[in-house]
């Protein structure tokens, strides 16, 4: 029972922080340097994780489909299945879970350290708003970068699938690409990218919320960082299910 009350309390806290961040986003002055710094940290610093994850996910999906479809003589459709799976589901979701683990925990560790050393208090005492200084650039950066990383993951995932399909099934790159283009519509891309916008928001807001509520010194920072990774992973997976259902109802 206590756990449920605590969870509701955290949900309320995250909602409140989101509202404060939304208000602060549209309130001048805007500091572009802070945003660029976070775009670099969240996006540029995460591309290698996104690429590696997508490459091997696409590859392993192609192996499974090639082998699984062979008895039915349908191995040729590997490209269709891989591309659909990557673009609609695994591209956005795996990118969010892995990048979220890296970026979200980084946010918590950084802001949490600032909280326990009173630097967040100092920001306020010096006349600034910690939400505007710390939370807004991170949320905006993640909301921008997660879709871009997802696009990259989609391409690389399909490429990984194509490499395997060429070797395992003997499909030519041209045939694979024709299947991908035939299969994927704009709706599929929008579906995956729209989810990644939400995932970017969840990653940043949860990382920042945990950081701002860190207590208990350096031990507390470690605990908060671990909690963030768990919270982001669960939130991404659960929200993926809900968002997928919503988008399927909207776009079919």
């Amino acid at each position: 029972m206590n756990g449920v009350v605590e969870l509701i309390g955290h949900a309320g806290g995250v909602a409140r922080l989101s509202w404060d961040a939304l208000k602060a986003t549209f309130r001048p002055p805007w500091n572009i340097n802070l945003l660029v710094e976070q775009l670099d940290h969240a996006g540029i610093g995460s591309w290698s994780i996104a690429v590696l994850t997508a490459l091997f996910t696409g590859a392993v999906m192609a192996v499974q489909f090639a082998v699984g479809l062979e008895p039915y003589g349908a191995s040729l459709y590997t490209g269709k299945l891989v591309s659909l799976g990557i673009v609609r589901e695994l591209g956005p979701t795996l990118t969010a879970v892995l990048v979220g683990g890296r970026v979200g925990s980084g946010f918590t560790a950084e802001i949490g350290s600032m909280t326990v050393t009173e630097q967040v208090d100092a920001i306020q005492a010096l006349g600034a708003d910690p939400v505007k200084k710390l939370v807004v650039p991170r949320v905006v950066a993640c909301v921008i970068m997660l879709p871009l990383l997802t696009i990259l993951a989609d391409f690389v995932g399909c490429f990984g699938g194509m490499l395997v399909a060429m070797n395992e099934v003997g499909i030519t790159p041209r045939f694979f690409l024709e299947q991908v283009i035939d299969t994927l519509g704009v709706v599929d891309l929008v579906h995956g990218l729209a989810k990644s916008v939400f995932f970017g928001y969840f990653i940043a807001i949860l990382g920042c919320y945990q950081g701002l509520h860190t207590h208990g010194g350096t031990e507390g920072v470690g605990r908060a960082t671990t909690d963030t990774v768990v919270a982001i992973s669960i939130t991404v997976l659960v929200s993926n299910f809900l968002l997928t259902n919503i988008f399927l109802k909207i776009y079919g």
Partner: protein
Amino acid sequence: MAEQTTPVTAVEPIISFKGVDKAFGSNVIFEGLNLDVYKGETLTIIGGSGTGKSVTLKMLIRLLKADAGSITAFGEEVTTMGPRNLLGLRLRIAMLFQGAALFDSLTVAQNIKYPLIEHGWKDQDKMDARVREVLDQVGLGKIEHQKPAELSGGMKKRVGLARAIAIKPDVILYDEPTTGLDPINVRRINGLIRHLQATLGVTSLVVTHDMDSCFTVTDRLAFLYNKRIEWVGPPEEARTAPLEILREFVKGGSGILTEDLHI
């Protein structure tokens, strides 16, 4: 009711706590806290660990909100102040945090410029000049380009103080300014508190455990005990005050105090 001694020269307090309550969950920190601070004085709050000394400072600049009661600064109510007035208040009341709270990712110069930028300064040359001026005031040389991690504890405190005085505040809040410092740095920080009061005419509100520092810098002493200010007066009178626990505290009997406070 707490006994309060008013300095002869003072007329109206510039800071006033009246009947302030504060609790963190079931942990009650203050019940009916009363305290007045007068212009130009250095008032030191002493008391055991966990009695809420730092909370007092943080409530004054609304880093923490009081649950009940009134806190006024320069005649304005702090507890209900809007964001714009709060910004003005934080321009007039600066704080030196216990660990200095310098921003690790910024250089010393950027740390000191931080409040200047927040309060509307735009001219880089003027800001650079102000950085050099305040670093001189706290006795630090050319360390503008160093990061906090490269500084000693005493230097961090002095940079924190330089950052606090950069905006020329009327009041400076010192949270444990000498904790964790060697005797030379303790003397240096105490000297700076006195020097800033004498040269800039700032009012100082100090929170400390360090009785030697307290007697060096303070004009009046406030003893926080039993969730309120139990005694206020000149430091020399603390040794003969009617409150036994205060006499013990001043003598250095912190063991007895801790036991009595059930900390």
